[in-house]
């Protein structure tokens, strides 16, 4: 574990969201799937927003996706000043292979090299002993 105190914002873990955060702690991506219509659901919901079924299960997913849109973040606003040390960095909308959409940082690549259509994979940063935050990196490293 990092010796430095983690100063960036952390999520609140609730009974509804605990299976997700338990999975990221194991460095796995697990999201809800509707037993009725089969759709994958992100972020955690109280019922299936597509069909209204309350029969949801947690399903491990590939962690693979494609960049839908990307922006280089250049200032801190409406978030913790602790992000300042990371600037500039890329925020992307990633369309996951299972048909759901996530926001996240894309790292291990220069911001100007992140393009729409780029294939990315998820990995996890251990923020604290309890919380690991999903991050994206290019699936195939160049060179």
């Amino acid at each position, binding site marked *: 574990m990092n010796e430095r105190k983690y100063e960036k914002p952390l999520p609140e873990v609730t009974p509804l969201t605990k299976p997700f955060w338990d999975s990221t702690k194991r460095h796995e991506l697990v999201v809800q799937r509707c037993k009725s219509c089969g759709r994958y659901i992100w972020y955690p919901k109280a019922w299936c927003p597509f069909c209204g079924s309350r029969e949801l299960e947690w399903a491990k997913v590939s962690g693979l996706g494609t960049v839908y849109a990307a922006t280089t*973040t250049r*200032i801190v*606003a409406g978030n913790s000043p602790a992000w300042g040390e990371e600037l500039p960095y890329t925020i*992307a909308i990633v369309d996951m292979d299972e048909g759901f959409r996530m926001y996240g940082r894309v790292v291990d690549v220069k911001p100007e090299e992140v393009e729409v259509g780029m294939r990315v994979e998820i990995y996890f940063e251990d923020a604290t002993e309890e919380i690991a935050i999903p991050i994206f990196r290019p699936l195939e490293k160049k060179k």
Partner: protein
Amino acid sequence: MGGDIAIVGIGETPYSRARVKKGEIVMSAEEYTAWAASLALEDSGLTKGDMDGQGLAVVGSEWPHSEIWSAEIVQNLGFKPKLLLRGDFGGTNAVELIVQAAAALKAGMVDYVLFAGGDSPMLPPGENPNRTWRYELDYMRPFGLMGFISLAALMMQRHMYLYGTKQEHFGKIAVTQREHARLNPNAYVKTPMTMEDYLNSRILSDPLRMFDSTLFVNGGLAFILTKKELADKHAKNPIYILGYGLVHNYAEGDPALPDITTTGVKVAARDSLEMACISREKLDFLQLYDDFTGAVLMQIEDIGFCNKGEGGKFVEQTDISYRGTLPVNTGGGLISNGQPGMAAGFVQVVEAVKQLRGEAMNRQVNGARIGLVSGLGALAYGSNFANAGALILGVEP
């Protein structure tokens, strides 16, 4: 709906960013709400007492953010409404509350509804109340997103990627609205801005620049709705509500993977024009919700003035100033007039009424008789806006 409801009074306070050292005033949301309400009452020839037993619509204040704010306002300001409405719709607060109030007026529940919108997002200076969505706290801030700035930038980036939209296209909107603000005595921002100034302004998150973005101010706006039968009993000419449209959780395409360059205004504007029985070519101006320039460009496409993706070229080739063929955001919009927090959507309504009354002075749209007001609210996870609405206002019922 066809003109059954009219706006018979408006009020707008000066704006402030509570910079005490620059001599700016510091007031609470409640003080601005009272100030704006008194201006609207005076404008209509009504008194506070006339509102007893009528309707009152307030907006969810950003500060102070109490659990039951509407009852606090009623108590503190001594209102005695029969019907009490509170908006928690963000940028669609004005449109949504007008639709709710119109239903109550048409049902005969009340004869008047006073809309009192005040907010002080810049107060107290330096403090940043934790006012946002659960999904932002859990799945955006810990993931590194900068709220509005990230989401606005992503919408603009996607539009540029798909359609070749240029930063100068967004710039033309910013520059035109600044020109309007400079002609609007009440607008907050008065500094001249050229395209060069725009292109040299700070990038917050590519491609979103400082001059693309809304500017928070403290302030208040108010207006009064009544039935057609009472509309002519007031000091100023009534402005009629001819149509409206609302949509929530709109998604273009797959609801899990929507096209973020198309807003719900596509549906809301279509419905409002249908209700008013007019075509978009009849509109003399547009007051479009503009928390950033990209939202204006997307809405021009969504209303149908050009095809999706052609907004950049359309804006480039069209005079969108108050003297042009399609005047847009004639008072400066949120970007240059300033955004009084959750009273944001009131700015577009009050400017539309001024234009239709012929009270817009140096920025008056010549012969304005009918116009469209839009609202966009609640930045959605993985999409654009969860709330969208549109109104058609006109000088005749």
